[in-house]
C-alpha cells in the first residue's frame, strides 16, 4: 500500500501548471515519471477498486478524484543485481593464466616473430577499398559508436572568456570485428530483451586496443580469426540500422564524429568501495557536538514499528558505491584532433581517468543530426593528407589566436 495524502480535487483543471517533479512513480498512459498522480475509481464496489493511475496532463478530471503525492523511496530496482565480479556465462574465457614456462630467450624471440609474420600481411583494409554499398543517410539511422579512453580533463575557454571544463577522450585503435544482422541478433539473449516490442536492428561488434595473443586463450583469439586481426583487449557492441553497416576490419577513428555534435558517453563510474550512508545516499547524519553520543555519520531509524513491521527492501544503508554503468547524455564535442585521434567533449564523463568508455551519437531527440554526418563512418582521403589536423568548435577560443578583448 502506498502511503499518500488524499485531497479532493474536483476543482482540477487540466490546463493548469502542475509541478512535474520526477520520481519513481509512473503514469500508466503516458509513461511520464511524475510527482502528482490522479487516482480514479474505476468501478464502485465494496472494496475501493483503484485502477487508473495517470498523470495530471493525460487525465480528464470531470468527477471528484484524489491526488496522490509520492512520498516513497524508489524500491523497484533494489533487488536487481547491478555488479558482478565475473563476466556473463555466455562469454568465452578470455585471459590466459601466466604459465611459468621456462622458455629460452631465443625461443621467445622466435614466437614473437611468428606472431608478427602472421599478422603482418593482414593489415586492416581501408574501408574505401571494399565495395561498401553507399547507403543513404536518413535521420533515423543509427551509426556505429567508438571505444575510447578517458585520458583526463582539460580547461578551455569560450570566445567570451567563459571557462569550460572539457574531457579528453582518446579514440583507441578501433576495428569492426563482426556484424550480426537484425534477425540473428533478435534471437540472442540480449537481443531478445532489447527488441522485445520493437523492430530489431543489427549489432556491430567493435574491438579496441590490440594486444599480444599470448595473454589470451585460444577461444578468445578465435573470435578474431575471421577478420585476421590481432586480438583486442576490449570489445563492445553497437546497435546499428542496416544502412549503417560497416564491413569487418574497418578502422574507426576520431573523424567518425563531427565537431559540434552531441554524443552519449557510456562508462563505469568511479569505484568508491564500501561507503557509509552519508556519502552514499547523502544522509545528514547527526550533530558533531552538543553531546551527541556515537551518532555523527549514522543512518538513524530504518523503519516504523507499525506498518509492515519489518525493514522494507531497498532501504538505504551503507554498502558498495560506484562502479556502475552509466550514460552521460547529450555532451557536445568541441574539438577533434585528427592526428592523435582525440576528442574533446564539453562536460565530464562517468569513470576515473584512464578508464574505457563508449561514445556514440546522442539519443536525445532535440540534439540529433539534422545534416548527414560521415556515414557510415569517416574514411581518410586516399593520398594520406589530412584536411585539417585540429578542428575547433566555433564557440571556442583557439589558443594560438589573439587574446579576447571584450
Amino acid at each position: 500500500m502506498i502511503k499518500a495524502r488524499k485531497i479532493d480535487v474536483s476543482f482540477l483543471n487540466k490546463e493548469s501548471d502542475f509541478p512535474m517533479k520526477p520520481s519513481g512513480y509512473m503514469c500508466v498512459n503516458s509513461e511520464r515519471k511524475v510527482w502528482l498522480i490522479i487516482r480514479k475509481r474505476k468501478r464502485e464496489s465494496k472494496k475501493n477498486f483503484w485502477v487508473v493511475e495517470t498523470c495530471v496532463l493525460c487525465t480528464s478530471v470531470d468527477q471528484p478524484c484524489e491526488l496522490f503525492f509520492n512520498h516513497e523511496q524508489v524500491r523497484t530496482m533494489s533487488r536487481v543485481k547491478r555488479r558482478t565480479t565475473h563476466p556473463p556465462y555466455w562469454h568465452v574465457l578470455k585471459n590466459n593464466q601466466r604459465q611459468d614456462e621456462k622458455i629460452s630467450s631465443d625461443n621467445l624471440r622466435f614466437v614473437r616473430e611468428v606472431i608478427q609474420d602472421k599478422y603482418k600481411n593482414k593489415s586492416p583494409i581501408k574501408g574505401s577499398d571494399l565495395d561498401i554499398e553507399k547507403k543513404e543517410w536518413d535521420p533515423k539511422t543509427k551509426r556505429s559508436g567508438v571505444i575510447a579512453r578517458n585520458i583526463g580533463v582539460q580547461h578551455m575557454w569560450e570566445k567570451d572568456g567563459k571557462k569550460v571544463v572539457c574531457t579528453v577522450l582518446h579514440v583507441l585503435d578501433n576495428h569492426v570485428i563482426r556484424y550480426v544482422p537484425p534477425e540473428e541478433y533478435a534471437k540472442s539473449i540480449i537481443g531478445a530483451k532489447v527488441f522485445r516490442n520493437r523492430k530489431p536492428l543489427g549489432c556491430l561488434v567493435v574491438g579496441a586496443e590490440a594486444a599480444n595473443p599470448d595473454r589470451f586463450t585460444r577461444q578468445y583469439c578465435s573470435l578474431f580469426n575471421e577478420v585476421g586481426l590481432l586480438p583486442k583487449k576490449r570489445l563492445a557492441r553497437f546497435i546499428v540500422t542496416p544502412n549503417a553497416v560497416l564491413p569487418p576490419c574497418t578502422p574507426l577513428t576520431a573523424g567518425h564524429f563531427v565537431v559540434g555534435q552531441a554524443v552519449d558517453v557510456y562508462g563505469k563510474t568511479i569505484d568508491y568501495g564500501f561507503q557509509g550512508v552519508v556519502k552514499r545516499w547523502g544522509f545528514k547524519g547527526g550533530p558533531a557536538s552538543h553531546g551527541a553520543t556515537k551518532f555523527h555519520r549514522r543512518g538513524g531509524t530504518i523503519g516504523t514499528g507499525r506498518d509492515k513491521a519489518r525493514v522494507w527492501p531497498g532501504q538505504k544503508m551503507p554498502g558498495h558505491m560506484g562502479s556502475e554503468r552509466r550514460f552521460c547524455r547529450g555532451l557536445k564535442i568541441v574539438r577533434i584532433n585528427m592526428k592523435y585521434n582525440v576528442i574533446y567533449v564539453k562536460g565530464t564523463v562517468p569513470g576515473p581517468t584512464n578508464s574505457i568508455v563508449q561514445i556514440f551519437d546522442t539519443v536525445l531527440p532535440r540534439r540529433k543530426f539534422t545534416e548527414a554526418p560521415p556515414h557510415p563512418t569517416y574514411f581518410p582521403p586516399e593520398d594520406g593528407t589530412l584536411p585539417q589536423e585540429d578542428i575547433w568548435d566555433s564557440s571556442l577560443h583557439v589558443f594560438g589566436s589573439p587574446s579576447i578583448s571584450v
Partner: protein
Amino acid sequence: MLRRAVLQTFRQGLAQSFFKRNAVSLSETTVTHQPIETSDEADEKSVSKQKPGDESGNTVVVAPPEFRFMYPEFLPDPAMERRNRLKEKLERIDMLQRRSVVEIPEFYTGSVMAVTVADANSPNKFARFVGICIQRGGSGLRAWFILRNVVDKQGVEILYEMYCPLIQKIEVLRLERRLDESLLYLRDALPEYSTFPLDMEPERRLNNSVVPINPLKVKLRPRPWLERWERQNLQGVEDLNLPQRFYDKAEKVAKPWEKYDLMLQYRKTIPAEEQEKIFADVHSQLQQQEFKRKIRRRRGTD
C-alpha cells in the same frame, strides 16, 4: 616551485646550479664546488646545455635545470592515478600556443606583478591590477597565481589563471623571491608590507642571471590570526612573541619525521628523468618565442 627543490638531494648537479643561480642575497657563504656551467651562463639567463654526444654522435639538447623553477606549470600533477602522457603532451602544445601570443614571464612568489585583463564592466574595457604574488599553483592550463595589494586601506587579492585568454598582458615589475614559498601570512601582516603603488614602474635588474632573494622579515599584526603561523616554520616573519604554550603545542603537533620520508617526497614530485624529457620537449619552442620577442622589442625601440 620550491617544494620540488627537494630533488636536489638526489641530483648533485642540479643542486649546484640552483645555488649558483639564487645565491646573491643569502648571508651564509655558498659551498665551494665545481660549477658545471662556465662563464657562458653569465650573460644569458638560460643557455641550453649540450650533452656530450651519444654513440651516434648526435648532440642531445637538454633544457637547463632552472626550467623547473621558471616554468613549474609544465610539470603535471604527480598523482599517478590521473597521469596520462598523451594528454600531458597535448596540453603542453596548447600551453605553448598560448605563450606564443602572450608573454608569460618568469616570476616567483614575492615578485611584484601587473596584470591587464579584458573586463566588460571597466570604463576602458581593460582592468589593470598591480600586486605581489603570494601564492602560485596548478599545473598545465589550470596554472594560477594570486596577487595581493592594499587599495584604499582595503586588502585585495585576485586569483589569475595564467592561460586564460582574457589576460592581455602580464608584466613583472620586480622580479625577486622571498624566504617562503607562500606569502599567505601577508594577510595577517601590517598593511605596509602588502601595499604597492598601482602606477609602479618596472624595475630594471643589473644582474640578469640571478634572481635575488629578499631576506625581508615581515611584522605581523597582534593575534587573532587567520592561521597558526607559529606551526608553519616561516622564515620570512619576524619573531612572533607568543607565550611559550603556543610553541609547546606546535612542537607536539609537528611532524619532524616528514623531512626523512623519501617516499612522501617522491610521490609529491615528478621524477628527474621525466622532468628532463618534458623540458627538453618544450625548451626549443620557448627559446624561439623568447628570441622572436627580443627582436620585436628591439624593433619597437628602434
